[in-house]
């Protein structure tokens, strides 16, 4: 491609990179907070059971309903950090051309998979909101915010996957682009 086009693409990539970094970072923070909240609830539950013989009502229910959101909110950063589990025993030995093909296929597959998961997650979240879904528990807390968080996390991961796909597809095999090889 011409230098002008290449630099236009690079600018676009840089912008996409900044936006997706911000989104993945915020989502990761939210995921961490949810995990911290689960820890706190679990500890308070045990302490209350021990001291006043009255466990925190619905603590286990809240924890299990919050888990999917916590997991998917961190998915964007997992992709970004290339913390996705990859078996690299063979592809480490690929020659550069094959390596590039494998990187593009991996990125494309990841994008398709997360896009599919995100579409399913939105379907689930919309159903939940329309039902005003609440937990079946001693305290009937709303579930839809957790499903919404799950869908938002899956969406951010999809954008992150798209960015990685663009990097894999646009990067020239002769020089390494940031995050190209792990």
């Amino acid at each position, binding site marked *: 491609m011409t230098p002008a086009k290449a630099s236009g693409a690079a600018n676009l990539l840089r912008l996409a990179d900044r936006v997706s970094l911000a989104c993945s970072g915020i989502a990761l923070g939210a995921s961490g907070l949810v995990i911290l909240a689960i820890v706190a609830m*679990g500890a308070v539950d*045990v302490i209350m059971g021990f001291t006043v013989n009255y466990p925190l009502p619905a603590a286990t229910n809240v924890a299990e309903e919050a*888990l999917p959101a916590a997991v998917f909110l961190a*998915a964007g950063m997992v992709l970004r950090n290339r913390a996705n589990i*990859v*078996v690299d025993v063979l592809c480490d030995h690929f020659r550069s051309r094959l390596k590039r093909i494998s990187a593009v*296929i991996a990125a494309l597959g990841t994008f398709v998979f997360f896009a599919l*998961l995100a579409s399913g997650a939105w379907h*689930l979240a919309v159903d939940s909101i329309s039902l005003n879904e609440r937990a079946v528990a001693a305290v009937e807390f709303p579930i839809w915010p957790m499903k919404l968080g799950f869908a938002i996390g899956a969406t951010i991961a999809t954008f992150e996957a798209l960015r990685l796909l663009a990097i894999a597809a646009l990067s020239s095999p002769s020089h390494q682009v940031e995050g190209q090889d792990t």
Partner: protein
Amino acid sequence: MSSVAIGLSGIFCALSLTLFGVPVAVSLGLIGLSGMWFVGGEVLMRSALETLAYNALNQYSFVVIPMFVLMGVLANKAKITQDLYEAFYRFMSKVRGSLFMVTILSSAGFATISGSTVVSAAVFTRLALPQMVRYGYHSGIGAGCVAAAGTFASLIPPSIMMVIYALLTGESIGRLFIAGVIPGALTAGVYLVSVWVMVRLRPQIAPLAPQEFTWSQKMESLGRVGPFLVLAILVVGGIYSGLMFPSSAGAVGAFGALGIAIWRGVGGFSHLKDALSETAVTATSVFMVLIGGLIFSRFLVFSGFITDIVAVITESGIAPYQVLVAVVLVYIALGMFIDTVSVTVITVPFIHPVMVGLGYDPIWFGVVLVKLIEISAITPPVGLNLFAVMASARTQISTGDLFKGVLPFLAMEFLVLLLIIMVPAISLWLPETML
């Protein structure tokens, strides 16, 4: 296309993509989804997309994974484990491979509170691997040791797999738990002896301390293991005294580790933020594989592959020991490529009555089965424990190193499996004596 052909093609495709460098979760998930489309149409595929991922994660038994991972991350940050390993290293400075041994022993100890092998592997990668690397140990074998020792969690009670087996078959949970004690201890013993032999054959994998430590140095390091003991007593004591359920232990352990981190001055906002980010990323990369595996195994269920392959064995009319050998081989072969936990749920209801009908003891068979599931968690290329180690170790090792490093431990596992099969008393003596 027969169901067996469909299933095998699915496994072949998922495996090819995985080896071609596609993330494990993605290759299992995408092939699983395509497979579901193939065997059940778009409706089946869409329904899996919409509800499977959420409902797979939405289970309290999974909450312990991020909890214990956080405990491990914080324990590492607060140097709780570093101090334990340091003390051990100083006291055992003349024993080659002592850090492998302390890893094996503490994994066995952790198995008495954790029923999940993935949790053990993820936690000990955090705790033990950096220490082994710090003292110049071979990182691949160290990682293999962590992954393999993590499997103790499902033989030594409590054990989630045994509870599942009991519920599916109606066998006694208590008998199964007790039956797992000796095989679990035996596995740990075989590991210890084999490691002792291994470091003699290849001394370079576990260098000795360059100098002898003085008594005051030893005592000084011993003085710093207090926080570790506090944490261990909190978690183990909490469960065994009836203060909390095993499923609460993760949260309490993480809470305790946070307290110690604050006390040691590494519990501030930025430390906590790092620890939580690390925990979320680690847990999520394990959960992604779990989801991919569930999508894939649901495809195998709907294709009829699982039930047909069981039927082939059980209806073949071969001798009892041949059936046993066939069952073992199928689990090992399948276990190399797919996660056998979900497969077990489907196969046990068919296989259990057949084995009992052939005269095999159902408690003994439960132990054999749990052992087979343990083995499948550490057989490359698809093994959940291996992935839990990868997720937690990140850049410290490559997949290739890990796959090679786990091989000696796989050999030990096969040895123990053979012993358990040949000598049923290893599993049955204790329950028969105690109950």
